[in-house]
């Protein structure tokens, strides 16, 4: 509710490495539900994204990665959500925005692409109109000018026979094509920050690569900052500069993509790496992480991964580990980092 947003605890934000970051999240908590049963989806996330940087938030379903992403635009249902902490995007305090400021910010400063492009378009309007509508909303131009912009964008995201496609309804496009259209929509007002919620998960493997390459190319051309949410390590490796691994509503490991993938230090990240099929492991059995993520309506007091962790001891189940600096911005939250060093 709005009052919750207004009465949130003021958090002093320490200045980090980059002086003017695109995104700065401090101690973000997101709780859903009624007073009787609360789900603590996100529990104290700190995250900074520099301008022009591409970050991947990696995690399994229910880890809070999509919720964190949606908090950046305050897209979660207001009546059922309690947001605390601080979220700043492009210097603006997102949690303090009025409804009007928020709608001006959404789509213009930050834009989002969704997991299921087919479901993210209104089925009874043409895709061209849905893009034009956004341009009209933010730039006050006519529908005709909006459609001209849409045509430009369709060419840019390489949709064949763009002009004809603008007049199509969403159900007339294929999955890959509608994700391209979704990207065109997201880019229509030249956002500074692009949020992508598993944009390739619903697509065929061959289309996935095309979409990833397209996104990377557009990001470089436009100099956007991008936050990518995925559970696919290959995707993270392909597109991002930095990775943040999330587990049970908290970041467990973060760092440059090469260093996290080459030398994962948190046992959860290690587990993820081992449960992945790759060339070198041909012929071996894939190892899965035993157990299941904790119930987020009653999270454990200590490290949430402890029950599934091969290295866990008494400390782990009692107290929450803080983030430790491992050098070069690579950080992990674990009590037993000494044992995971290779």
């Amino acid at each position, binding site marked *: 509710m709005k009052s919750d947003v207004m009465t949130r605890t003021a958090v002093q934000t320490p200045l980090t490495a980059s002086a003017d970051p695109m995104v700065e999240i401090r101690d973000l908590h997101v709780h859903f539900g009624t007073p009787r049963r609360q789900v603590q989806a996100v529990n104290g996330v700190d995250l900074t994204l520099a301008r022009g940087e591409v970050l991947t938030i990696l995690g399994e379903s229910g880890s809070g990665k999509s919720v964190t992403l949606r908090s950046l*635009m305050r*897209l979660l249902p207001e009546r059922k959500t309690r947001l605390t902490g601080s979220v700043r995007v492009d210097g603006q305090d997102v949690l303090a925005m009025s*409804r009007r400021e928020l*709608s*001006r*910010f*959404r*789509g*213009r400063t930050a*834009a*989002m692409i*969704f997991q*299921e492009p087919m*479901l*993210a*378009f*209104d*089925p*009874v*309007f043409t895709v061209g109109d849905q893009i034009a*509508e*956004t341009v009209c*909303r*933010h730039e006050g131009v006519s529908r005709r000018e909006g459609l001209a912009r849409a045509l430009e964008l369709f060419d840019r995201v390489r949709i064949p026979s763009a002009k004809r496609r603008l007049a199509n*309804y969403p*159900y007339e496009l294929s999955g890959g094509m509608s994700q391209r259209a979704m990207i065109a*929509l*997201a880019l229509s*007002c030249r956002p500074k920050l692009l949020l992508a919620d598993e944009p390739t998960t619903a697509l065929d493997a061959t289309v996935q690569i095309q979409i990833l390459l397209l996104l990377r190319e557009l990001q470089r051309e436009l100099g956007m900052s991008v936050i990518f949410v995925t559970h696919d390590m290959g995707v993270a490796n392909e597109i991002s500069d930095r990775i943040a691994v999330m587990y049970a509503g908290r970041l467990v490991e973060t760092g440059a993509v090469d260093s996290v993938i080459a030398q994962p230090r948190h046992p959860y990240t290690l587990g993820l790496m081992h449960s992945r099929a790759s060339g070198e492991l041909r012929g071996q059995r894939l190892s899965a992480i035993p157990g299941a993520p904790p119930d987020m309506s009653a999270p454990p007091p200590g490290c949430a991964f402890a029950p599934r962790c091969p290295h866990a001891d008494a400390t782990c189940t009692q107290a929450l580990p803080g983030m430790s600096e491992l050098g070069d911005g690579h950080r992990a939250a674990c009590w037993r980092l000494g044992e995971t060093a290779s």
Partner: protein
Amino acid sequence: MSTYFLKRILYVVPITLAVSFFCFSLVHLSPGDPMDAVVSADAPREVVAMVERAYGFDRPLPEQFALWVSRALQGDLGLSAANGRAVTAEVFAALKNTLLLALAASLIGFTLGCTFGLLAGYWQGSLLDRLVTGFAVGGVSVPHYWLGMLLVIVFSVELNWLPSSGAGPGSSNDWAFEWAYLRHLILPAVTLSVIPMGVVTRTVRAMVAEILAHEFVEALRAKGLAEKRVFLHVVKNVAPTALAVMGLQLGYLLGGSILVETVFSWPGTGLLLNNAIFQRDLPILQGTILVLALFFVLLNLIVDLAQARLDPRIQRS
């Protein structure tokens, strides 16, 4: 696009034939001899034979049907068995009144139903939602002849604000858009509007709630549209269903207003049917049912075509 429309229009032909066959069969399916209503039991045999010939009852059934259809196509539905007047004229005079009543009732019911449904669905779970939903359930559940009588007792008998019966001052059957006539319309129209109001409210509420849960609504908000504009998207998604429900309701109102028309002595098809049933006036029954059924078919056609224009996906399926 046009193939769908063409197909849908051609589809009407077999339905119409089936409907007219059913209406024709009514005479022979109903218990008793249709002649009983026309001539008295003790009439001389020559008179019976003559009347039989006049009504065509002496010919074989298929021929009777063909004859009946060809006459009906020319606008001749025969003569009333009770008073000898032309059925076509009787039916259309009554249909005009029923149509007036049904349109007034659905205008009220549809407007209120859509408004209530949109509000309740948009603020689902709120106090407003619970009030409106309760009202809608009441509207669907209350027997409307009882509601009609209640309204008559309150507004005609006690308050003496509105007339309790007839379609206009005196026994005049020609309607005019004047207050003297409009005040006769109010009570029956309100009574009749309660059912479509309830049905439309519930349907629209459910649809709005369902559509708000779709991912595209979040996507609309994510691109920064004002809430008004998001609402517009929701309305356009609800419109085809709301329209279909209303079309069907209008059809039910045309055929189902028998009780309300009887309570208010409204000179429409309902009253006509009611009287025809008690007088065993089969030509009137046949004619009225045929005209009402064809009207229903036409209405469905219009609704389907309008729906297809609103929702492009329908033409595909």
